[in-house]
């Protein structure tokens, strides 16, 4: 399938998400609703993975770059960032360990029960 159609499918799912957010004022990113819609379309086989893999492979492989502009924008928040550097680091580190532990443990226990 040509690139225009591929882009149209992905953007179409996203637009649907935007519409849902607009109509229902649900507090969810439009992109997540788009993700779920695309997954459903794949599942009912209206869309085939191969037919959109051109655009999605490109997006997935280069996802990291979307991270760069917000990181550079930290420039504007240096004051705020350095003023709260202790809470940010402490809270993030401790919470990360907790998540690793709790998720791993609960999956391991639940898996055995089955």
């Amino acid at each position, binding site marked *: 399938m040509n690139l225009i159609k591929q882009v149209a499918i*992905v953007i179409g*799912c*996203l637009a649907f998400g935007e519409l849902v957010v607009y109509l229902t004022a649900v*507090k*969810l*990113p*439009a*992109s*997540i609703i*788009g*993700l*779920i819609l*695309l*997954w459903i379309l794949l*599942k009912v086989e209206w869309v085939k*993975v191969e037919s*959109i893999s051109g655009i*999605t492979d490109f997006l*997935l492989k*280069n*996802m*990291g*770059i*979307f991270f*760069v*502009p*917000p*990181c*550079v*924008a*930290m*420039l504007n*928040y240096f004051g*705020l*960032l350095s003023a*709260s550097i*202790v*809470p*940010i680091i*402490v*809270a*993030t580190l*401790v*919470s*990360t*360990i*907790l*998540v*690793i*532990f*709790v*998720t*791993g*443990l*609960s*999956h*391991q226990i*639940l*898996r055995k029960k*089955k």
Partner: protein
Amino acid sequence: MLFLTLALYAMGIYLTSKKKWIIFNPIIFATAILISYLLVLEIPYDNYAQAGRYIDFFLQPSIVALAIPLYLQWDKIKKQLFPIVCSQFIGCLVGVISVVLLAKWTGADREIILSLAPKSVSTPIALEISKTVGGIPSITAAAVMIAGIFGSMIGFKFLNMSRITNPMSQGIAMGTSSHAMGTMKAMEISEKYGAFASVGMIFNGILTAILAPIILNFLMPYIS
């Protein structure tokens, strides 16, 4: 500026393929050089914001594209659906609540606390959640980065120490806590680990997007 961002990012990928130093991670590498570049030459940030908007435009479609790995891994997920969803649910709750309370106790402002809530989630999703709940995306980006680097560094050591040795549980824990970076780390060990880590990453992204605003609503009396 747009070109410079892309070029630096590509250079980061190239350098990482040569030497796996954390400083060569394309995101850290490009950010560090761009910030120094703007600061040293005293270029106002607004000049860069234009390039930032072009890149931002692709953020949302790339989240939609995450449906593909989720679909491809579905057979594996289906068998384990109950344990996966449950552990993710618990992980998501613990992640959001603990970071919010810890930030409160260590004296962070309200805006900072809100920005930290989605810190375990893959960046593009975290940025979206941050905007939804009224956080500052840049602070979120920093926290996501810290969670990713830290989790991928100590995750597996910590899991083995706590006798959580099942490869599936380990993979899911890594993806849930440290998103793409945890997934990359798991991918280095084996494809199977990696697949489960990516499932953890995507599910937690969706769950946090749904639950974070609700949890924050409940916690509001404690934070403000």
